């Protein structure tokens, strides 16, 4: 018989042993010697945290009560690891690239770093896990009771006190190893090693008991099979819907339970370990389940009626007097319970601290906490308090419900609650359309349905839900009965709850995702998660360290300049006691380097660059956003500078242009004045000369007198006309001319122009060629001005057409809203080099004798046509001088200004 004190002593010794293992592992890891700590086997064994005391003791009880149904608990994870390991790999890769610290962090991060979602998942996890922790406390307490069963002294001991001290012990262990250091990756080598050791202990213990019953009690495997066949277990009814439901649930549990996510994703050091785990962990589970039925059958056969089947693992060896084996079994159960509690409280404390305590604290503190920089102590303290709080909650739950039916069933209820994360998780990893609103909707609906159909009823009638509600539904609404939603009555309550909570959860998730619109941050994160394999590199190994130091140096040289960069690296290497200029890439060195770089490129960019090269974690979206922000600021600044200098040079250019224009205008004005002066002085010269002749000379013949007076008269008229033209041109050029639009027949206008020029001496023998039918167009324009142009062109033809038999062809074309009138004579035309200048002022080409004008005619025509909304151009290559006048049929109204 083992005394209670000895048992406690064994427990303590075991804990001290675990403590030492964990401590040594941490030390080796800190020295960088812990290669084996990261072996795939350790990883696989750490997954065994799945097998809690509930599995260790409870599976046998389960088998004794319900036959083979317990297998589903092992079947689910096996299916996932064998068939869905690619999904787990994606999960692990995301966990590494995004530095995911918990399942709440995963969901929050995927949906645009939404802390609201983080809080929701944390709450679900706490509510789902607390009873489970209580269950572990209960199992440890019960196992003590079994040992004390024969010693009357211990029966009087308070169960609660045992549970309390177990809880305190676990809290201490967890605080010591879960929060020893604050690693960015949330990895706890010591804890993982301790868990792995415990995994071996549970397996060995269970197999030892198995061997005892098969070869010690029964006569070997054949006898055992016969015994099984005879036992009631063989005849237990198996409900297929429960099989499917339970298998699904345990499959989901392998990655949605907070503690499973912790060991599977967060503590994963290398995603290749999954390959080993995918066969090794199912093997472990198979070994764990191998002797469950034999132990159950044996227990039912040899132990007195009414013995608790949940404790067969302990009571069988005890009843057979195998105290050593019993102690081993006790340690196995103890291991199962403690490993679960330790990992679960680490996982929960991370969530509670990161998503509830820290945000609240930072908000309460305002900005001062972040400015002061050292939030490390704060985070550690908040973690420790969270661990204690989680265990206090578990203990409180245990002492409130201890020993009731509720606790026994809590395992599957917890599974179902935590499985509500499933749609948001799988949807978030595979579907970019999943949104924060969708995730929140799915989580809330799933959680509420779970609480209503399973969690609250599990406390029994009238605890939370009255028996009236359970039987008739709230307000007697029949289809809202918690265990028969929508009139589904013939389903097992657990399957019913799994079915409805996850179906409604998924509907809410997909529905709300489809109708809501994701923020940019969500979309970026969504892309990072869904396409994680496109964005990330495989995990980094230490062997690349040297190459990376070189890469870092090269990068630093580009930014800091080679002298400064080399000095920085050499200094760091000296501090580390190394020769040369390449230091070890320690976190401290990276910190220094980032700080140096951030002076030049901004902190976020520096961090992103260093991380990219060192590659321990890929650059996260948050990093990139920060980089983008910095870049945007720099860009904005340089854009502003650029704009300013552009504006300056634009102003300078404008000034220059204005200056040039003024100069040109001034030159033009001089030329124009000089031209006008010339044009005015020439007739005035004749007038003055002949008037002096007339005044001074008495002996002029009457004929001479008449000739000279005629010259004076003609020159005076020429002067007047010149002044008229100048004034006209000035008015037309400034667009100040008053246009008088009226209707007129084009043919009549041309007739008028011909008759106005018919009195000219020049071109008296000019032959006109017209097609009157085509000219029969009514136009609405300033007909006087248009006639002025026609007269000018006809007069020019009469004056300058040098053909022997001068002819002028006038051709009217009417196309759409435009009318064109061509004036083509058969003279020698205008030389090509002069064609460009004929519409300029004073651009008389021939000598004045023939011209008689000042060279303003065509310039005036050009201005008139522009005022009428048309144009006049010279048509080259028509055989003679050819002008085309074009104008709209209906003159556009000019805006008055």
């Amino acid at each position: 018989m083992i005394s209670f004190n000895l048992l406690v002593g064994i427990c303590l010794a075991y804990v001290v042993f675990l403590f030492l293992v964990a401590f040594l592992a941490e030390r080796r890891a800190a020295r960088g010697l812990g290669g084996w700590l990261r072996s795939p086997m350790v990883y696989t064994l750490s997954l065994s945290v799945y097998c809690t005391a509930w599995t260790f003791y409870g599976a046998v009880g389960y088998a004794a009560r319900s036959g083979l149904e317990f297998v589903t608990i092992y079947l689910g994870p096996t299916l996932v690891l064998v068939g869905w390991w690619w999904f787990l790999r994606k999960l692990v890769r995301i966990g590494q690239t995004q530095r995911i610290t918990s399942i709440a962090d995963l969901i929050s991060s995927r949906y645009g770093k939404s802390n609201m979602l983080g809080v929701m998942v944390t709450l679900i996890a706490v509510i789902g896990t607390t009873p489970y922790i209580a269950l572990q406390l209960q199992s440890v307490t019960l196992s003590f009771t079994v040992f004390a069963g024969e010693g009357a002294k211990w029966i009087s001991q308070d169960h609660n006190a045992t549970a309390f001290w177990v809880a305190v012990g676990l809290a201490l262990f967890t605080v010591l190893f879960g929060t020893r250091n604050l690693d960015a990756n949330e990895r706890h080598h010591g804890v993982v090693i301790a868990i792995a050791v415990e995994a071996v202990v549970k397996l060995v213990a269970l197999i030892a008991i198995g061997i005892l019953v098969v070869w010690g009690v029964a006569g070997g495997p054949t006898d055992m099979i016969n015994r099984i066949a005879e036992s009631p277990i063989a005849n237990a009814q198996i409900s297929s819907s429960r099989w499917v439901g339970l298998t699904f649930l345990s499959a989901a549990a392998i990655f949605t339970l907070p503690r499973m996510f912790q060991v599977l994703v967060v503590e994963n050091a290398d995603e290749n370990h999954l390959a080993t785990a995918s066969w090794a962990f199912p093997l472990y589970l198979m070994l764990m389940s191998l002797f469950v039925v034999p132990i159950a059958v044996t227990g039912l056969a040899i132990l007195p009626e009414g013995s608790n089947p949940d404790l067969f693992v302990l009571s069988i060896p005890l009843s057979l007097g195998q105290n050593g084996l019993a102690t081993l079994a006790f340690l196995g159960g103890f291991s199962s319970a403690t490993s679960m509690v330790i990992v679960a409280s680490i996982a929960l404390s991370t969530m509670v601290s990161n998503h509830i305590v820290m945000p609240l604290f930072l908000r309460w503190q305002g900005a001062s906490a972040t400015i002061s920089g050292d939030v490390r102590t704060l985070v550690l303290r908040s973690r420790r308090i969270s661990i204690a709080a989680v265990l206090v909650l578990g203990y409180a739950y245990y002492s409130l419900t201890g020993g009731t039916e509720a606790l026994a069933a809590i395992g599957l209820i917890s599974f179902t609650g935590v499985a509500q994360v499933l749609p948001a998780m799988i949807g978030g990893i595979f579907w970019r359309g999943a949104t924060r609103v969708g995730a929140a909707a799915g989580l809330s609906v799933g959680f509420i349905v779970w609480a209503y159909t399973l969690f609250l009823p599990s406390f029994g009638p009238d605890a939370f839900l009255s028996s009236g509600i359970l039987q008739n539904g709230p307000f007697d609404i029949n289809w809202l009965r918690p265990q028969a939603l929508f009139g589904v009555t013939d389903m097992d309550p657990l399957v019913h709850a799994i079915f409805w909570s996850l179906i409604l959860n998924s509907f809410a998730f997909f529905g709300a995702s489809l109708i809501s619109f994701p923020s940019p941050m969500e979309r970026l994160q969504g892309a990072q998660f869904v396409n994680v394999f496109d964005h990330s590199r495989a995990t980094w190994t230490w062997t690349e360290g040297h190459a990376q130091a070189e890469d870092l140096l090269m990068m630093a040289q580009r930014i800091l300049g080679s002298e400064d960069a080399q000095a920085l690296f050499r200094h760091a290497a000296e501090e580390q006691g190394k020769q040369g200029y390449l230091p070890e890439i320690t976190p401290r060195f990276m910190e220094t380097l980032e700080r140096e770089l951030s002076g030049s490129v901004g902190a976020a960019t520096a961090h992103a660059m260093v991380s990219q090269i060192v590659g321990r974690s890929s650059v996260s979206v948050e990093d990139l956003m920060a980089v983008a922000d910095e870049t945007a600021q720099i860009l904005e600044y340089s854009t502003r500078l650029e704009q300013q200098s552009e504006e300056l040079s634009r102003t300078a250019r404008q000034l220059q242009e204005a200056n040039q224009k003024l100069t040109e205008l001034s030159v033009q004005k001089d030329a124009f004045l000089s031209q006008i002066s010339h044009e005015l002085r020439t007739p005035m010269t004749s007038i003055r000369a002949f008037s002096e002749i007339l005044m001074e000379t008495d002996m002029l013949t009457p004929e001479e007198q008449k000739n000279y007076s005629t010259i004076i008269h003609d020159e005076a008229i020429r002067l007047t006309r010149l002044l008229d033209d100048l004034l006209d041109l000035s008015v037309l050029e400034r667009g100040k001319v008053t246009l008088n639009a009226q209707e007129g027949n084009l043919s009549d206008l041309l007739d008028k122009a011909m008759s106005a020029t018919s009195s000219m001496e020049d071109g008296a023998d000019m032959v006109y060629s017209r097609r009157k039918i085509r000219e029969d167009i009514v136009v609405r324009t300033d007909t006087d001005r248009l006639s002025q142009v026609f007269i000018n062109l006809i007069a020019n033809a009469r004056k300058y057409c040098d053909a022997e038999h001068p002819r002028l062809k006038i051709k009217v074309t009417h196309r759409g809203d435009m009318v064109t009138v061509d004036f083509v004579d058969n003279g020698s035309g205008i030389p090509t080099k002069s064609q460009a200048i004929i519409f300029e002022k004073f651009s008389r080409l021939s000598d004045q004798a023939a011209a008689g004008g000042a060279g303003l005619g065509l310039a005036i025509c050009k201005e008139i046509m522009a005022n009428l909304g048309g144009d006049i151009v010279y048509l080259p290559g028509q055989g003679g001088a050819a002008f085309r006048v074009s104008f709209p049929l209906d003159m556009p109204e000019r805006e008055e200004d």
Partner: protein
Amino acid sequence: MSKEVLLIEDEPNIIEAIRFILSRDGWVVHTHSDGTTAFEKITEKQPDVIILDVMLPGRSGFDILHDVRSVSERPDIPVLMLTAKGQSKDRARAEELGVSKFMSKPFSNTDVLAAVRELAGQ
């Protein structure tokens, strides 16, 4: 023997006026109204005085003056320049080119006659 004047001018009424004024004073007046062929005319006529307009069809009076002063057989032939543009920079240019006398249009008949006489050395 009467002296000869070559009048290079393109405005017919001004040609008529100057011819009248100088003929009356006993001068032989040759006229020419095209700038392009003016230099040949000068070489051909070898006048005692040239009256030269600036704005001429084909070639400007300045160019003709330049040729007279640099490449003609008699570079010292007196040239009276008449211009309707009357800007000071035209006068400056003419003087630079070696004009003998520069007058603006409109001119006084007496002044023109006096100038021609003076240039002819009478």
